[in-house]
């Protein structure tokens, strides 16, 4: 009697292989001009240009097409927009490690807001747990444990440090991308054009903070959990084989809202604002609190500042 779980796995594998071969066959048929076969292969999306090459009209076309596609796929009204950066804004983030209790509500709020794959599981934020005593000579990331699993947090004698994309001013990731699929926007957000990424994972090798995640398998988000308010460079659903990461909730912040992680934090450990505004919260804490950045010796100039509140 074969193991039912294994059988399902084989069926899934068989199904996806059949599907792949079907798509490949229809692609080949479409290439040969077979009538009706072209429906399975989306030429428009295949030939889509790099975001930075597109005119405003072309971008409008893309977001319209994707809105329709995702509305159909998820059975609800989905809008994808490509709102541009606000003027005179460069975003900065602050994280008070004296307050963080390691509850991971930010992690899950991010997953919900940004339509991250549930299975395979992708988390853009990773919370590291450190022992207080071990850190007396400074934080050694090797001692950080992201897999803690306590009944209640904070656990005794531990402190917590969430890590996600630092949106570096001198990001190594944007330098190494061979296709120019990732770049720094004028408002400081490091974005990815998910339709342009070829999945070479060079950016993942280059990132010193482990901020980038890869879609090793087909990502899936249950339709009822999809956040339908999407940005093309942010929380729109990603495809298999592309890299993704925190976008400072680009779909929220460009409309003047806070990132989802900040709103979810029950202890107010997270701060966010415009670095160019001298009256902003982020500027206040940079001025009055003891801030540090991770791996400052690498010269990446992160815009994510940890501090002791």
């Amino acid at each position, binding site marked *: 009697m074969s193991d039912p779980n294994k059988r399902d796995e084989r069926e899934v594998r068989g199904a996806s292989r059949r*599907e792949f071969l079907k798509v490949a066959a229809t692609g080949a048929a479409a290439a040969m001009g077979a009538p009706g076969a072209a429906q399975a292969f989306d030429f428009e999306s295949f030939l889509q240009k790099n975001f*930075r090459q597109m005119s405003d009209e072309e971008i409008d076309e893309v977001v319209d097409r994707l809105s329709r596609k995702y509305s159909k796929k998820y059975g609800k009204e989905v809008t994808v927009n490509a709102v541009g950066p606000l003027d005179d804004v460069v975003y900065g983030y602050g994280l008070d490690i004296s307050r963080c209790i390691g509850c991971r509500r930010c992690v899950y709020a991010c997953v919900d807001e940004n339509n991250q794959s549930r299975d395979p599981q992708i988390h853009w934020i990773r919370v590291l747990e450190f022992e207080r005593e071990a850190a007396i000579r400074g934080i050694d990331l090797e001692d950080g444990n992201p897999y803690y699993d306590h009944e209640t947090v904070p656990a005794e004698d531990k402190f917590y440090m969430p890590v996600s994309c630092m949106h570096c001013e001198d990001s190594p990731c944007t330098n190494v991308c061979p296709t120019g699929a990732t770049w720094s926007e004028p408002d400081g957000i490091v974005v990815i054009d998910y339709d342009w990424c070829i999945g070479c994972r060079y950016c993942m090798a*280059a990132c010193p903070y482990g901020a980038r995640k*890869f879609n090793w398998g087909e990502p899936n988000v249950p339709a009822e959990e999809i956040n339908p308010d999407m940005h093309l460079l942010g929380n729109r659903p990603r495809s298999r084989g592309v890299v993704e990461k925190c976008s400072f909730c680009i779909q929220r912040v460009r409309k003047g809202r806070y990132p989802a992680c900040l709103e979810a934090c029950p202890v107010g450990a997270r701060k966010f604002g415009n670095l160019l505004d001298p009256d902003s919260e982020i500027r206040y804490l940079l001025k009055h609190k003891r801030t540090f950045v991770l791996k400052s010796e690498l010269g990446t100039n992160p815009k994510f500042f940890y501090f002791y509140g």
Partner: protein
Amino acid sequence: MKTLNYFWHFVIGSVAVVSRGTRAYYAWIALLVVVILIGVNAYVNQASMGLITANMRDPLSWGFYIGNFAFLVGVAAAAVVLVVPAYVYNWGPLRDVVLIAELLSVAAIVMCILFVTVDVGRPEFLWHLAPGVGTPNFPYSMLVWDILVLNAYFLINYFIVTYLLFMAFTGQKYNPSFIMPVIFLSIPLAVGIHSVTAMLFMGLKARAFWHTAILAPRFLSSAFCSGPALLLLIFQVLRRVGKIEISNQALFKIGELIAYAMAINIFFLGVEVFTEFYGETAHSVHARFQWFGIHGSSDIAIWTWLALACNSLAFICFMVPSLRYRLPVLSTACLLAISGVYIEKGMGLLLPGMTPGVLGEVYHYKPSLNEVMVSVGVWGIGALLFTLMVKVAMEITVGRMRYERS
């Protein structure tokens, strides 16, 4: 029009040559075809399920495929070890066989391109790298540089061998003042491809193990051991099955050159180890993982020591004349050198580079069966290509395949 006629006969002639052979030849081709089919099947599996069929994950996002890629770029570059004595110093014994080395380069580059193709998440979008239709991130991305130089080196080597063979096939004399500059260009380009591939890794400040100036020199020194060693073995096989003349003198000279390369390779290893362990910092954790294992994970330590043993033993055999001049010892040394460098430059480069990861995580990586099958398939394609090219080249070189008006 005449050229077209020649070309057509060249193609027909080549097809005729590769479809005839000894029983051993047919068996070899059959084996390669089986291996390739296994690889294709595994790749279809990967293409339908995604790279999740591999064992790479976020903490270790490059693995077996890129390890093979790095090793093969070295093999491709190593043709230069034969090209320099053959063409620059006009040394007869190597002059006769340098063409086979150039053919190995061509096959190796094809394998490199295939390994990158099977490693990317969305190979259907590789056209995004093409200038014009795509947006290659030049000059900042070292990957773009690597693609440029690898393609340039491939084209140059392919052009050289095609030109020389085509000229011989049609009974014309090749024009030295035309082809020699191209051949001379392939020499710095060989050094170039492997240095640029090293720069891919060296430039990553996030990875302390790779972020060292010695990576490029080490890549070259290990390439100049493994590539010629592979050729030494191939020459002996060809001598026997192809009934072509390859002098022992040529073999021993290559062995001598490998000795120098291996000496430098081991020296570079020594200085790396000294720097990591004498002035040990947190960054040395990668070297510690490589040689001793960390946190109860000794995935690669045994292989590192094995590679050292292989390389050292090979070095002695290549260095000591009384050992080098014994063909069985020489051949064993070649196998040892190839194994040692394959370990060092494959998993021995990738695993310590990404273990521990940037946030201190230790991910236990061993290539999945699917990864191995795809890789074996790629090697099969390279071997088949090389076999077919060499068969045609040998027939032309000995004068058995010539243009004849029908």
